[in-house]
Structures are given as structure tokens and as C-alpha cells.
């Protein structure tokens, strides 16, 4: 223990990650809350998030509806501007980039969207959709673009003969492949996948999850995988970040979180997910939370989980626990980490 006050270790400066590809520091995103002319309320969608992603890894971001996980993803890819904070991609601060420079950066940062129906322009053919990034960045034209499109379609398991078909002629899983092909065509390094399988049937989900794993291995992709389903996130992620009401409450390697969740909310989440095994189900006791998720317009003071936490103490409503390193590479924001 050194006496010198050193800057606190945050997930953004996680010493277990060597050279992060993406680093998010104190990121905040507030929206004006809809309502009357004089409403001064803000939605605290993302409220001070620190995280880092190493090249080639998949970071899973999990949380329930309204926790801000999708907003976080969209701010990271700059579909929405940040309110404050910084996002370093390699050495560029994405929050300061705008206009043409931002557009250029999108060659390296791509996104896979949740709804395979809504994310494809119904008036464009599949070939045009997949070719669009090539065209916008002037990477390839004509014959060369066509070849590249067919190659990518084959890589994602789509029949290249269907380039002239329209999106509505395909099933949900095939459309999601089209969206993946579009994200892949420029050879990006980093992909944010926002609930990429939650709109799909179970048997199709596995196809897409496997495809994403194969692609990652083959092209050395880095994923931020956002989902509400802890089972899928656990399967695909190297590390997991758990979000509650605009803040990350726990972050760490997937396996050690499974074995020993540090934050009570992680524990609750984990205990709530059923397992396809009747013997285990017979003994599983979900920890039921009291009350409802509070409004992000008026989040609870100090620890945001204290209103529902099974082990809350008076201090939890007075002092906000920082998201600090509890073990090597494991961060949790709780005064009583690991005690539930």
C-alpha cells in the first residue's frame, strides 16, 4: 500500500487488459424527458460509465429493459452524441470527432441491429444493401464491389444468387445475416451488436450466435455484445458488464462472474434465469426483488440498487459505492460485494 494517493483503478484502466481497443471514461448520456413545455426533467440513461474492451475479445453488456445498455451502445458508435465523458477508439476520442472524420471512422466501427425487419431498407435489394458501405466509402465499384458482396454473402451463409431479392423475401434469421454481411463488408475491427438474436426463434438464435463466433475467430473482430438474456451473453462473451439504471454495477470475466457474482444485482439476475434441466430447476430458488425498477428520471440516491437490494444497509442510501476492483480484473460497485 503506497501512501501516495494514486488515481483510482477503474474498468477503463483495468490492469488485466493490455492495450484496449476501446476505452470509455465517465460517459454520460442524458435525454430531456418528454412532457410539458416547462419540463426540466432529464432521463439519466447512461450515468458515468467506465469500461474498456481488449482487441479480439467479446464484452457482453447485460441488463434489463430501460437500464441504458442500448443507449450506451449507440453513444459508443456515435449514433447519438454523448452528454459528457470520453470514448477512446485506439487513440481517437470519438466524442470529439464530427462530420467527415466521423464518417471515415465508421469504416472501422460497425453495428448489428436488433430488429432484422426494421434495419434493412425495404426498397433496396440485398445486393445494394450489402454494397452500400463500399459505395459510400468509395472502396470498390462495379465488378469489384459485386465480387466483394458475393464473397461476404457466402461468408455469412447467404446464397449469393439472391443479390437482387428484397429484404421482405427473407426470413428473420436470413435478414440478420444480411445485416451482419453489411457490417462486415468493410472489414471493420470493432462491432457493436445490439440484441442481435433476441428477435429470432430459438433454433435460429444458435445459427447466428455460432456465425458470430466463427466470424470473430476468422477476422479477429472485437465485439460489444448487448443483450438482456444472460444465457446468451454468458455463452458468447469473454467478459461481462452488468448494467442497472444507467450504471455498470459489475464487470469481470464471464466464468468468475458465473461462479461468484460480486454484486447483489448480478446474483439476482443469475438466479432468475431458468435452466433447461428439471432437476436443477427443482432446487433453483430465484431471489425475488421487491418493488419495481425506479424511474431513470429520478434515480435513487447513492447506490441505485438500494431500494430493491436484499442486503441493503443504511450506508447504501448515503454513500455511493464506486465501481472498484475487488479482485484481479473484477469490478463491482457495492459496499457489501460478494455478501449475498
Amino acid at each position, binding site marked *: 500500500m503506497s501512501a501516495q494517493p494514486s488515481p483510482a483503478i477503474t474498468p477503463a484502466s483495468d490492469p488485466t487488459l493490455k492495450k484496449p481497443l476501446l476505452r470509455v471514461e465517465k460517459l454520460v448520456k442524458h435525454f430531456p424527458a418528454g412532457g410539458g413545455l416547462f419540463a426540466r426533467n432529464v432521463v439519466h440513461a447512461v450515468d458515468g460509465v467506465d469500461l474498456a474492451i481488449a482487441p479480439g475479445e467479446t464484452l457482453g453488456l447485460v441488463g434489463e429493459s430501460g437500464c441504458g445498455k442500448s443507449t450506451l451502445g449507440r453513444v459508443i458508435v456515435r*449514433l447519438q452524441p454523448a452528454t459528457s465523458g470520453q470514448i477512446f477508439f485506439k487513440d481517437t476520442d470519438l466524442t470529439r470527432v464530427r462530420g467527415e472524420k466521423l464518417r*471515415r471512422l465508421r469504416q472501422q466501427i460497425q*453495428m448489428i441491429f436488433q430488429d432484422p425487419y426494421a434495419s434493412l*431498407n425495404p426498397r433496396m435489394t440485398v445486393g445494394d444493401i450489402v454494397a452500400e458501405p463500399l459505395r459510400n466509402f468509395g472502396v470498390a465499384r462495379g465488378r469489384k464491389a459485386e465480387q466483394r458482396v458475393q*464473397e461476404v454473402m*457466402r461468408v455469412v451463409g447467404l446464397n449469393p444468387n439472391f443479390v437482387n431479392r428484397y429484404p421482405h*423475401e*427473407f426470413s428473420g434469421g436470413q435478414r440478420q445475416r444480411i445485416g451482419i454481411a453489411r457490417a462486415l463488408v468493410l472489414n471493420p475491427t470493432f462491432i457493436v451488436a445490439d440484441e442481435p438474436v433476441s428477435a429470432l426463434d430459438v433454433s435460429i438464435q444458435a445459427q447466428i450466435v455460432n456465425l458470430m463466433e466463427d466470424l470473430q475467430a476468422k477476422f479477429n473482430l472485437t465485439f460489444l455484445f448487448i443483450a438482456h438474456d444472460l444465457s446468451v451473453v454468458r455463452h458468447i462473451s469473454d467478459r461481462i458488464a452488468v448494467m442497472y439504471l444507467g450504471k455498470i454495477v459489475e464487470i469481470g470475466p464471464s466464468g468468475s462472474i458465473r461462479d461468484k457474482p460480486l454484486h447483489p444485482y448480478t446474483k439476482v439476475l443469475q438466479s432468475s434465469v431458468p435452466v433447461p434441466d428439471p432437476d436443477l430447476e427443482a432446487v433453483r430458488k430465484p431471489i425475488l426483488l421487491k418493488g419495481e425498477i425506479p424511474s431513470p428520471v429520478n434515480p435513487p440516491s447513492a447506490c441505485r440498487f438500494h431500494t430493491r437490494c436484499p442486503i441493503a444497509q443504511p450506508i447504501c442510501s448515503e454513500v455511493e459505492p464506486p465501481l472498484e476492483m475487488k479482485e484481479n480484473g473484477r469490478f463491482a460497485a457495492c459496499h457489501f460485494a460478494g455478501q449475498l
Partner: protein
Amino acid sequence: MAQAAPVAQPDVELTYEIPEQVTLLSDAWRRIRRNRLALVGGGVIIVLLIVALISMVWTPYPTWLQAVGPTYQPPSPAHPLGLDNAGRDILSRIMGGALITVQVGIGSAIIVSLIGIPLGLLAGFYRGKVDTAISFVINIWYGIPDLLVALILVFVLSDALHLIPRGVLVIVIAFSLTRWMDVARLVRGQALALREREFVEAARMAGARDYALLVRHIFPNALGPIIVQATFAIPAAVLFEAFLSFLGLGLPPPTPSWGAMASDGYHGMDFAPHIVLAPTIALSITLMAFNWLGDGLRDAFDPRMRR
């Protein structure tokens, strides 16, 4: 593009079938085919177009030729719709009027769209100050008594300033300048809604510039409602022309405008009603046809039924 050739994927599903090709337009066509009134409307409009085309090269008599027989002559085998107060063949003039009607209608629909679509797209896409400014203009324009202003415009443009000769063009321009707001407001609403859709965001991620977003992604998806709105502008323009010409403020004689023809027969209505009836019926059928077709198109393009 340096990339290894793709190896076989375990999850490849290259050998699936997909259903027959249905484009969105053919889908709309399928739906409109089931709408009997819209089909009738479309049929009438096709007849109107054919008659207008024929009238460019042939009419039974020249539309301006007076005294081809006795004035006020009722319908007869030689003149199926009779003769008017100047002894002109009404059938010929109805055919000529069809051409005027088509020119006025389609011309207005085009100009209204040319003004309304860009303004609406800009307002809806950029929101903020651009939208405030354009919406302000739209709302001001709605407050203007359009008929009166259009009348004044026709007078100023052709009679006072002699900028445009009194004819179809000036009527189309006067109409469009006072009635572009419906299209603009509709397109604005469409653009506002579409810019939030995931595929527009996806295009932004794909590096599309604003121009590409507007032209490639937003406009094509607003096309259905725009076509509907433009279809409804046609009967309004046709009626406007007929009304002006009826008052004697529209197309100069002897142009065979249906409105002017009705006005010609006005004073002989008690003993030669056919002179008024013929253009009035032609006008009514045309207006109804466009409204039916417009309704049919609106149902066919209804976004709630589209997936």
C-alpha cells in the same frame, strides 16, 4: 480487400428456397386490383388519357370551328353531344377539354411535388431551425385565401406583367404556388418518422452522407404516401381550372376548357341543357375517378398493412 478466401461455414444455409419474388409495388398492385372502385377510377383515367392523346391529332371537327350546324342543336347522329351556342361540335370540344384537363392535372401534381418534396424532406430530416422556418412558412401559407391569391397570380403574371401567356402553364403555376403545402407537410411527417427508423441509422453507420440518406433511404420509403397525395392534388387542380374558366378568368376562348364550356351554355340552360351537361358530367366523372384512385392507392400503400 486483402482477405482469405472464405472457408466453408458449419452454419451455411446456401441451399434454402425463397418464396416467389414480390416487390413492394407489385404488392400494392395486388391490393389495388381487389379494390373495384379504384379500378374503375383507373379505367376512367386511362380513357381520359387516350381521348386526350387522340385529340392532339384528331377530333371530329376542329374544336374552334363555329357554325358546323345550327346553334344550340341538341344531340343528333352527326353530332352525338350536340352543338353549342356558337354552333361548335361539343364532342370535339369535350375531347379537346380532356387534353387541357390532363395537362392541368398532371402539371400541377408535378410542380406541387417539386416544391413540396424538397421542403418537406429538409424540414423533417434536419428538424431544429430548418424545420421551424419551413413549418412557419407552411402555416402562414395555409392562412392565405388560396383561391383569391391564385386568381390574382394569374392576373398579375399574365395580364399585368405579361410574364407567362394566359394558358395552362399560368394556371398550373398559380395553383401550385398556393397549394404545395399539403405535399410538404406530408413529406415532412414521413421524413420525421423515417429518420428514426433503424435502417436509416444503419445507413448512417454504413457511411451514408446526408444526401444519400435523403435520396436513397428516406425518399423512396415515403414514395407511396407522396403518390397518394399527388393523386389528390390532380382533381383539385382540375376543379380550380374549370372554376376559373367558368368565371371567364381562366383559359381564353376558344380554348375548349370544360369550365368555359359550361359557362357558354349557362344562359341557354332552360332550352339547351346539353351544352352545360356534357362538360359538367365529364368533369364530375374525372374528379370522381381521381378520388377513387387516390383512395385505392392510399389503402394499397397503407403502411399499417405493409410489413
